[in-house]
């Protein structure tokens, strides 16, 4: 597994800054830094299969291609939907910033126009999936505090347990998150996101594979515990450090496609 794969998949970076307030905290920060270092890559490309299952048994499926350039905190990524036919050609450009929420634009070919997605309400679900827009963002690690909790076993693998809380200056729908990091490969195994004392979303990372030296989770499963919905993301044809053009990550490029 790889932390990089996690970032690549949905830019879910919940790892970050640290206060030198004790050895447990220092250790948590060290683990976070190591996760980030091991997952680092200059670019990423993969094909994704997104399946959503609601509590009523209804299923929807979409496919996309994902491309990212740049490193954590300053990356740009483009998601292009390829199926079903109704959404083919719809594209999403995400420009991440280290110190603020990302900028996002969406291109809808049927209307032949782009629109800016204002992520003022980042708790909104991402296009009917169980991810929220906030879950898509790369976040400034310095805006969180961390604490190391007792180790736990997830899917049969021993994991460090790290509690992450947004600082007062940081606006988030979540009160805190618990991140489990595998001790065998520094891959994130699970993230539980809390609102007050209730776990509202659970993200599981599965099917780890070492791709070009990066441990990559090939399957992510997000559960919305309040709705009872599940979204499964499967990564195929994963390729790190592919030669991608910076000019392909602009609004103009989005419109050209």
């Amino acid at each position, binding site marked *: 597994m790889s932390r990089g794969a996690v970032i690549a998949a949905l830019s879910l970076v919940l790892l970050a800054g640290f206060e030198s307030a004790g050895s447990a905290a220092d250790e948590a920060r060290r683990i976070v830094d190591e996760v980030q270092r091991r997952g680092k890559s200059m670019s990423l490309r993969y094909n994704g299969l997104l399946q959503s299952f609601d509590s009523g048994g209804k299923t929807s499926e979409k496919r996309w291609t994902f491309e990212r350039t740049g490193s954590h905190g300053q990356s740009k990524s483009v998601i292009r939907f390829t199926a079903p036919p109704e*959404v083919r050609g719809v594209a999403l450009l995400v420009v991440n910033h280290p110190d603020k929420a990302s900028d996002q634009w969406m291109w*809808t070919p049927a209307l032949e126009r782009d*629109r800016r997605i*204002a992520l003022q309400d980042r708790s909104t679900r991402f296009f009917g999936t169980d991810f929220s827009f906030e879950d898509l963002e790369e976040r400034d690690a310095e805006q969180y505090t961390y604490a190391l909790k007792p180790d736990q076993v997830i899917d049969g693998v021993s994991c460090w347990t790290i509690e992450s809380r947004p600082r007062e200056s940081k606006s988030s729908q979540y009160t805190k998150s618990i991140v489990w990091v595998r001790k065998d490969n520094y891959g994130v195994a699970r993230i539980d996101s809390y609102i007050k004392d209730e776990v509202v979303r659970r993200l599981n990372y599965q099917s780890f594979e070492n791709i070009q030296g990066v441990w990559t989770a090939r399957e992510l499963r997000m559960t919305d515990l309040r709705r009872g919905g599940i979204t499964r993301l499967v990564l195929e044809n994963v390729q790190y450090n592919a030669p991608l053009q910076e000019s392909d990550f602009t609004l103009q490029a989005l419109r050209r496609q």
Partner: protein
Amino acid sequence: VNLLRLISWPYARRHVLRTILTASGIVLGVSVFGGMHTANRTVLGAFAQTIDRIAGKTELQVTAGDTGFGEDVLDVVQSAKTVAVAVPVIEAVVASNIAGQGNLRVLAVDMTGDRRLREYDFDSADDLVLEDALIFLAQPDSVILTKEFAERNGLSIGSRLRLGTAVGQTAFTVRGLMKSSGLATAFGGNLAVMDVYAAQKMFGRGRMFDRVDLALKEGATITAGQQELRTLLGPAFEVQPPSMRGQQFEAMLAAYSIMLAASSAFALFIGVFIIYNSFTIAVAERRSEIGILRALGATRAQIGRIFLAEGAAIGIVGSATGLAIGVLLSRSVATSIATLFGDVYGVSQQAGELATDPVVLSLAFAAGIVTSVVAAAIPARAAARVDPVMALQKGRQQLLSAGESRVRVMLAAGLVIVAIASPVFGRTRPVFYAGYVSGIVAVLLLAPLLSLWVARAIRPVLAWMRPVEGALAADSLIQAPRRTSATVTALMLCLAVVVAFSGMARSTYDSIAQWVDTALNPDLFVTSSATPEVQAPRFPSTMASEIAAIPGVERVQMFRNGRIAYGDGQVMVVALEMESVANTSPQEPVAGNRDDMYREAAAGRGVIVSDSLAQLRGLSPGTPVEIPAPYGLIRLPVVGVVVDYSDGQGAILMDRSVFTRYWRDDTVSDFRVYAQTGTSVETLRQRIVERFANERQVFVLTNEELRSYILNVADQWFNLTWVQIAIAVVVAVLGIVNTLTVSITDRRRELGVLRAVGGLRRQILGTVWLEGVAIAGIGLVLGNIVGGINLYYLLDIVRQDVAGLRLAYTYPLVTAATLVPVMLGAAFSAAIWPAELAVRGSLVEALEYE
């Protein structure tokens, strides 16, 4: 209570019909007052509720009138420190194309952020099924309907629905259903939600939004949010809580509300006269009874109290009945008001649940009782003063004493002088209104004398018509002026209001017709909606050249309009191609030089304002005006004042180039097309329809059709005139039946003697009929005179204080002529029953009277 039980109750039982007629005065007033207010409140309440449901959790709304603004404004709003979420909104009205389902109100939003503001219940599969959020955004044909509307029309997820849009009849796919609560109940369920960017394309909005709805960050106050946004956006934008839209709507309806309030107050006022009349009659009729009571030791106060208590009792019964009838009637009145709003203001609104206001209903109830007691007070006083001896002498009480008459005349003369002097010597409004009120009071004071004079004047006419019956009828009126004065006064007031309102309707109609003839003279109008809805789809400006290329088209003009905030209200901005308009339909200005006016306006160096706006805002040629627009403050002088009825609150006419520059909007509301000489208008219309058949939704109206539509709307405004005529008829019937009944009771001996000396049945009947018709005749004469004067004052009030409209004084001859047979017919009908009473009574009893 005992006196009521022993004296009043038996009297009421003996005169059931009379008692009912007396109470019906209050029933009429209270039912109109309660019913009209309930209906008005129901419609306004439904409008406010709709705004509330549509607004959801929106705390503030950013608008620029109804012209809309560019997408960049959204970025500015979203950048504000106090703003948590800001989402763009477009609202449009489209034809559902389903028989009996009318229009659909489209609420177009950006779903990616809108759920923070509005509850769509996406999470519950039972409540709402949104097929796929991404597909919804990706496909511009996506639409969410209310479950209620879908079920009504057999639609479900995946169904196709054809709606009229700017790009023609377009098939939409139902991709979601909302449960029938909250948002989904707005507009009676005739609501469709779609993507705002798709709506831009479908409704020809270019890259513009109608408004931005927003929620503030936690801790930010509404005031702080308003201040920040106003600073960021400038004066062209209104930043208001959603509830303020309801208040703006109410302000827009101010003129209508004034009319409504006047009508209901008028109905109650008329009730006073009916009660007064009935009690005066009762006092006259029961003189001997009162005399006996006094002789038996009853005090004056006790006698007075009996009549006041009767008044209160009738007031209670009449008010309760009136309220019940009013509430029952308010449903249909609310529906017609809602239709009027839709036609006149382009605001479609269905009347929802009846909004009865306990305070208003209590007020109406109390007003009914107070009115009844007040109306009974003077007759009660008269009853208390009855001299037992005089009570036995028939006729003495009815005569108007010379002393009393002199006081009335002197007082009235003073008031008439004030009324005449006020418009001559005082230009201020308080003086004007003092004159108006003085005139009304003077007329009321003089009414008995005037009716006496008119009765004397028409005596020869009646005598000429029927020498015996006519003379007897006229003498009856002349000998007992008090008996008829209340009925005549009530009739006179009714007819005065009918004549004045009808005159206003006539004046307005004529003025609008004249304006339509000069300003709206194109052969064809190409619009996107069958009715001129402000929120109708708009056309791109490129369509002008496409129309111009159609064979037979001489000239095409682009027209764009929209209401904007101006000062403390709103005005209509009208963007025209001034140079072209100067050639085709130049208007003679009320102020300014015509050639200069069009030249300067066409060059973008000035604006033309409507006469009404000039009047209300004190504008004249040369006055600089500041018009706040989304992309700058327009500072231009007024270069001319013209008569224009584009909007009740006034209009600013500017060259199209100025509008497109300051609004960055080149869309077109409608095109005005002139046909080439020799080209049939009907043929050209067909060509235009065919040219855009599969491309756009176009409605092509001929000049005559548009003219009819506008004048029909003008007509609807004055439908209240018919209500007032109906009230006048009711008043006439009630008053005349009462008056004649007592007249016959009073004259039983006289009528008995007539019959004893050989008077024929038909002669007696004829006398009573003629008396009834004569009362109506007197009312008609006085009503027309007072109505004519009233019309003068009302036109001045409309001009100076309400709408600024310059309406020419036009006496409503048709209405006046119509009233003659209507009122005389009503009077004759009212006289039939009393006349029968007169001939059916026992001759022996009649001769034994007194």
